[in-house]
């Protein structure tokens, strides 16, 4: 039985805690799915710059992970998610989303096919009841394995070199593929995936090997600028990559109180994921209807004039009519431009005469700005090193 006094430590420590806490000079902790995670270790600019210049470690343990196994695992996932889980090869990974019956987005995540009848689903929110209900009638077993896996993201231009120096031959590992390696008497799975839109990997092992893994990478990375980064630096990187986060860029259906706030994959710019030909999946009928009638909302990337981050800004057409809201924004140090992700009314998906109302607090006075916003393609930042196999030297 679980410790009855669990309430005394509502925020758990991840298996990497001895190392992350030692490096967390600012003591800037934030809760994430019941774990204490680092916001910024010591300097946000240095941390973000390391993601684009060198190599970084990010503690991924709180990410929710479900193991879905059994002879019907592929069929069950095909019912659950909008992509064809059957066509995902063993050793492959794909990004996917799932919806409720009305086609409203529940969450997004990455699906790993570990074996013909075994998958791992990684996501932001907890979904055990929904997964179990979706598994009704299928021969599958679904287990929350969040606590059984220690996960670490190794991201940045020198990440491949660091892995090689640590003794892992990942030269042939292509994007969205994974490989298994023996490590410290156990196993380490390395997938070429990540949330930075850069060259990078995610490393998966058992909690007992977490510290040896951290130490071995830190040793190997000493000459390659390896350093830990917190969630704030990662957030800038993910915005540059144009990635969305459940609960920030859309309200997940299971938490959504206000029905007009629900969004479909089509409305979140995720229609390209949907495999309309694979057969039935939850939400398909509603999404087909929405595709025919046209969605109400669209999700876009924006470049905003000026140099002030447009976080939370209201969007207007012709400076007057409110047409949407910015869900995430930053000054991109990589692109030297102000970028944003936004929900806009569908007819403004192509942009034109869009304006962001920005309030900048400067020494207790607000500078109010109406800034032109231009719809641009995502990802904002898309380096070739992300795709090269074998990866470039640095």
């Amino acid at each position, binding site marked *: 039985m679980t410790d009855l006094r669990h*309430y005394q430590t509502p925020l758990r420590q991840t298996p990497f805690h001895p190392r992350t806490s030692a490096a967390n000079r600012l003591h800037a902790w934030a809760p994430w799915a019941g774990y204490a995670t680092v916001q910024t270790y010591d300097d946000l600019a240095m941390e973000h710059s390391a993601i684009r210049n060198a190599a970084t470690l990010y503690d991924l343990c709180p990410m929710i992970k479900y193991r879905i196994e059994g002879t019907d695992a592929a069929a069950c996932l095909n019912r659950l998610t909008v992509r064809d889980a059957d066509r995902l090869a063993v050793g492959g990974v794909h990004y996917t989303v799932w919806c409720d019956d009305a086609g409203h987005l529940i969450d997004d995540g990455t699906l790993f096919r570990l074996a013909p009848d075994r998958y791992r689903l990684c996501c932001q929110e907890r979904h055990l009841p929904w997964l179990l209900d979706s598994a009704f009638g299928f021969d599958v077993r679904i287990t929350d394995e969040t606590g059984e896996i220690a996960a670490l993201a190794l991201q940045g231009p020198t990440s491949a070199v660091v892995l090689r120096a640590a003794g892992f031959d990942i030269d042939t590992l292509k994007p969205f593929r994974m490989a298994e390696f023996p490590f410290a008497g156990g196993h380490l799975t390395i997938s070429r995936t990540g949330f930075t839109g850069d060259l990078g990997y995610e490393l998966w092992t058992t909690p007992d090997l977490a510290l040896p893994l951290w130490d071995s990478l830190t040793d190997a990375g000493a000459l390659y600028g390896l350093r830990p980064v917190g969630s704030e630096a990662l957030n800038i990187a993910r915005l540059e990559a144009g990635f969305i986060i459940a609960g920030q860029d859309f309200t997940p259906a299971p938490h959504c*109180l206000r029905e007009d706030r629900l969004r479909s994959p089509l409305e979140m710019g995720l229609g390209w994921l949907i495999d309309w030909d694979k057969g039935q999946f939850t939400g398909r009928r509603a999404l087909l209807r929405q595709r025919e009638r046209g969605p109400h909302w669209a999700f876009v990337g924006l470049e905003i004039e000026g140099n002030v981050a447009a976080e939370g800004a209201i969007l207007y057409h012709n400076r007057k009519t409110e047409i949407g809201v910015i869900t995430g924004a930053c000054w991109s140090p990589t692109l030297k431009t102000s970028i944003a992700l936004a929900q806009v009314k569908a007819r403004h998906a192509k942009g034109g005469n869009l304006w962001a109302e920005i309030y900048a607090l400067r020494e207790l006075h607000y500078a109010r700005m109406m800034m032109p916003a231009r719809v641009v393609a995502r990802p904002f930042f898309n380096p070739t090193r992300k795709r090269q196999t074998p990866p470039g030297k640095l």
Partner: protein
Amino acid sequence: MTYDAVIIGAGHNGLVAACYLARAGLRVCVVEKNDWIGGAAVSRELYPGFTYSNCSYVCSLFRPEIMRDLELPRHGLQILPYEGGAMFTETGGYLGMFRDHEANRREMARHSPRDAENYDRYLRDLMRHCRFIRPLLMRRPPDLASFRPRDLSELAWLGKQISGMSEAAICDMLRFWTISISDYLDEYFENPVVKAYQAVGAIIGTALGPMSPGTAYVLLHHAMGDVDGNVGAWGYARGGMGAITRALADSFRASGGELRAGVGVERVLVRDGRATGVVLADGDEIRASRVVSNMDVRRTFLGHVEANDLPDGFLKRVRTFKTRGSSGKLNIALDGLPRFTALPEGAPMIRGDLHFTDSIERMELAYDDWKSGHFSRDPFQDMMIPTTIDPTMTPPGKHFMSSFVQYAPPKIAGKDWTHADRDAFGEACIAQIERAAPGFRDLILHVEVRTPRELEAEVGLTEGNIFQGELTFDQMFFNRPVPGYADYRSPIRGLWLCGSSTHPGGGVMGAPGRNAAAEILRDMKRPLDDMRDAYAVL
């Protein structure tokens, strides 16, 4: 002298109405039969140095707009949020409840990982229902048969609320209002203890079991309040629940109101179909242009108005209005804090609500006893020790325990409660606590046991019904208390109702009192300047 209004009963709703009327410049007199004020929001010192919350014991529903309008914080009112609680199991374990989301999830996951995660979806759905009902609380229900502009606009407003909802949401809502809490919880949860804990709020104050249709709504009634915007949270009034009515009385007097305690109203004076005042038990008459009754609808019209002055159909409705009592109360002065063996040392759950009925089936069996005219042999208790948070109610190290108990029928096997019945009822509850906390009995300094008999005799609640009428769908909204009379008026001009018998019902909410005052002031064509709009539900 003729008052503009005389209020019968110094309960929280009577005082709320009185405050608003006095602030509007009316000459108002409140008459209270007891030597003390408060109605069912009352704190008395029945053991030296110990302040009790003799009837109601926690606060969440009391409308924040009223606290602000009437400046109750300035008159000393403080609401203290409390922490979680626990449901003890027959096997010696427990299910705790925590304010921290993660702690709560892990605690539920000890019993069922699936239920722990589904709890968020359940709360979302409950909050959706709350979002619909909250804007209704401080509005006068429309008269469905009326073509008056205000009724039509009220109906149109209601239609607009519903038209904004999806078909699925409307279906969910209608199901929710009529379903039993047991069936409703089965749709979300698998673990019996988790279900039992969630069912607590669905049976409190109601002569229904968790398997009776309509009990899901009763849960909503207990979940739609808030403490400082934290919807569903409950708190203690610092100094006991009497602090609420004390602050109201102070606010009332500060507005020039007059309060007479110690002599009750014998009869409402009616002349030519119009109320002209009241006659007190001691023969005194108080003349007033209008009489506002904080008594329940049955006590008002069956006990204090001549039947001859009322239409037959109305009277029949009043006679059949359900006020079946279902609950009792133990108020206990303790020499120290009881030690519940199941809980870890120093566990914070002891500062919240504690229960012993660990399954829906046990609750239903407790209700079966009520149906057969007996108090529950294995009673359901909603127990608190507010002195774990509030330092003002007892000497340091001593404690006040409040235990709300179901089920207790208005009569025992058709006969009036005897002292022996009452003592046996109290003993059943104390024995249950003693099993979970050995040595508890030795800590007891004084016990006040209250059955429906005491609640009726002392507080004036007909049959001891704490809500002044059951909160079932057939007695809600425009049907409360009587169809056609949901506007706080009565067949007698100038005789108004302002208690929990009226919309939106029971609990220490204050909304019936405020709504009644608003209707009276509108009727007098007075501006509602001192009554802020209900806060928007964003």
